[in-house]
């Protein structure tokens, strides 16, 4: 069973057709990178998967549940699908470790000692053990993003969505965040969908690359095939443009 499956999904913002007939399957454990020019619908697509954006038509199955069905409990989906945002969205009123511990405590009812242990281990993993007691305002951008990743992992999700996780970071901060993401991708059971402009990351980590433009999926190929031999003209053009940087 695929972890995430789009069947003829359509999404509109008023009259604007943001997602056009999306068909996409992502299997459990897969790492998929979603690229494309800005305004192509990448973020919209990824945000539909945990219900931050509603779809208007079609079927969207996540972990076997149909998101378009009003009977589906969105909170249950979100328990299993974590998300990392471009602007981190850490809880500004909570310390780093509290950011990591809050949802497991109140949503999963994890015991306090277990929760603390898990949180510390995760902060260790992302290199922030010494910042556990600091407030988000005292962290750098890269540290914030790594804390946000730890926060998502604490829920032990089946899938993680990354919405341009390094786009708001200073260049020297990007490496640390990508390293953490690379580590997560190594875990064979974690399904990852990453919207990014980091082509080297895509090349090194992704199993598959999906190229979007104007709300459509134009190309869905293995990483090797996509970078060595892109089929679509727009994908070729996009690759040559990002390669210039």
């Amino acid at each position: 069973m695929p972890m995430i499956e789009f069947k003829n999904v359509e999404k509109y913002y008023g009259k604007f057709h943001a997602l056009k007939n999306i068909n996409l399957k992502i299997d459990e454990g897969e790492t998929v990178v979603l690229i494309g020019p800005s305004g192509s619908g990448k973020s919209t697509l990824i945000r539909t998967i945990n219900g931050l954006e509603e779809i208007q038509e079609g079927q969207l199955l996540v972990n076997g549940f149909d998101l378009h069905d009003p009977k589906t409990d969105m909170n249950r989906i979100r328990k299993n699908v974590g998300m990392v945002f471009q602007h981190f969205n850490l809880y500004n009123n909570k310390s780093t470790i509290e950011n990591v511990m809050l949802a497991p405590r109140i949503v999963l009812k994890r015991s306090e000692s277990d929760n603390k242990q898990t949180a510390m281990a995760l902060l260790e993993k992302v290199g922030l053990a010494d910042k556990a007691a600091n407030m988000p305002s005292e962290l750098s951008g890269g540290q914030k993003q790594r804390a946000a990743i730890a926060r998502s992992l604490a829920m032990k999700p089946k899938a993680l969505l990354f919405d341009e996780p390094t786009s708001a970071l200073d260049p020297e901060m990007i490496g640390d965040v990508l390293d953490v993401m690379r580590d997560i991708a190594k875990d064979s059971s974690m399904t990852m969908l990453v919207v990014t402009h980091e082509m080297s990351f895509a090349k090194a980590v992704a199993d598959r690359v999906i190229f979007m433009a104007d709300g459509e999926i134009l190309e869905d190929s293995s990483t090797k095939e996509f970078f060595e031999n892109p089929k679509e003209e727009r994908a070729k053009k996009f690759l040559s443009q990002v390669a210039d940087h």
Partner: protein
Amino acid sequence: MALLENNFPTFMQGFGYTLLSSIIALIGSMILGTGFAIMQIMPQVWIRKIGNIYVQIFRNIPLLVITFFFFLVVSKYVKMSGFTSGTVALMLYTSAFIAETVRAGILSVDAGQMEGARANGLSFGQALRFIILPQAFRVALPSLGNQFINLVKNSSILAFVGGLDLMYQGNMIAATTFETFSTYIVVGIFYLIITLPLSYYMQHLERKLKHAA
């Protein structure tokens, strides 16, 4: 001074009722105001509408009119004293302003905070309680302090409906002693005994929370 000594129990009784009315109305209006603020930011349009109608009604009618409505109209159906009608009116009136203050506080919190919380598995209510409201109250604090001080001062409408408060007792004392000037000076000082510590406390809280941020 003789005036204060001779009428001390009466002043104290008024002071007590003013304090009691203020405390009840403050707690009640905080709860109601926060509730109506939340209603106004709910995803469901009809809930937002109800919240908005409530706020518009109680914010835009003079407090005295609301007080008389409870004292003269509602009391025909539900038995209530002047003290109760005045306190209820004060609570409802202030809650509309608190709702607006808290709503503004909620709107000042970055939308990413709610998205982060929802994506993290929290329900809308949990996100409000643990993430949004604590940040909203911090922003709203200076303005809430003003509302609280206004509330204490506005409690003087109890005098119009025999509410036994400071203003009411002051009126009585002034009418019997004819020492109008001194009486109202004493009344004013009694109000200050409540409002000055309250405003210092609010400023203290503001400073404390600023450092915590």
